[in-house]
């Protein structure tokens, strides 16, 4: 029902030669984590980490992933937002 655009995810991993990828999903898409992870690992050599925590919006990106050497985050269900400055 929702287009996960897995081809786009795979292409981006290949293009950036990412080795360790973190995927982040809003609650409604969390059950799709297996499908997404399986697709990425079958079509690329990247290792996948699934973000367990919240994904309320593009304001809510995982932090601290540098410590594990994550080189790409793919966040589903949201788009770029403009952080308000006032």
């Amino acid at each position, binding site marked *: 029902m*929702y287009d996960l655009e897995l081809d786009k995810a795979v292409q981006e991993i290949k293009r950036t030669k990412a080795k360790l990828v973190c995927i982040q999903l809003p609650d409604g898409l969390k059950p799709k984590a297996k499908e997404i992870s399986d697709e990425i690992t079958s079509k690329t050599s990247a290792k996948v980490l699934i973000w367990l925590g919240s994904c309320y*919006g593009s304001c*809510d990106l995982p932090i601290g992933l540098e410590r594990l050497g994550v080189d790409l*985050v793919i966040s589903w269900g949201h788009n770029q937002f403009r952080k308000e400055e006032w």
Partner: protein
Amino acid sequence: MVRTIFIEGKYSEKVLLSNDMLNYLKGKKYHTLGLFASVQFCQQFDSVKQQLEKLSIKAATSTAKRCAVEGQLLGCDCSSDALNLNKDVDAFLYIVDGNFHPLALAYGQNWNNVFKEIICYNPKSNQFTVLSKKDVETNLKRYKGALTKFHSTGNIGVIISLKPGQEFYKKSLELEKKYTDKKFYYFVDNEVSFGQLENFNFIDVWVNTACPRIALDDSEMFRKGVVNLKEVLRAEVF
């Protein structure tokens, strides 16, 4: 910050307004609706507009303050100036599969005398719900009470989020310049740990600098009350 890409997860089926939805709109005799959606449905606005035109209803939309896509409205666009809608509408139609985002439209009408109903249409279930002032009244009353408390008390707890999109630490320091008679204590967290608030019993009231919806939807989690940074920085000081 690690390189990040976003995949919207666009709705892959056609958004068709159900007969129940169309009959409801017909009965209301609306002339113009403010049309908004979560990003998954925005690409189908032309089709939704055509369905509304058959009922002689016009649709007006805008690009809200924090959004990159026309017609999209985020949950945090919940202040009265967030919509950027320059057309008068009779009510709002929000295409969505939940209530979090459209509630922003209810909170945004916070200070208005006339409340325009928000019709939430779920294309997955073909069901619709209507949000009214009652859905936000309790939270808004609690919020207004906390605002009064902020202005009359002295020990203020400022909550700083580590989430990059919600982090306003530097901005929060302006509080000290504006409210020189108050003492500000700064608390940092990734998620707001509601269970920890009570341990800091010297705090009279909290200022939330993270997602503004926390101070509204979760206001009951703050026994001492909570207000948003933007509100108190903009407030007139007497």
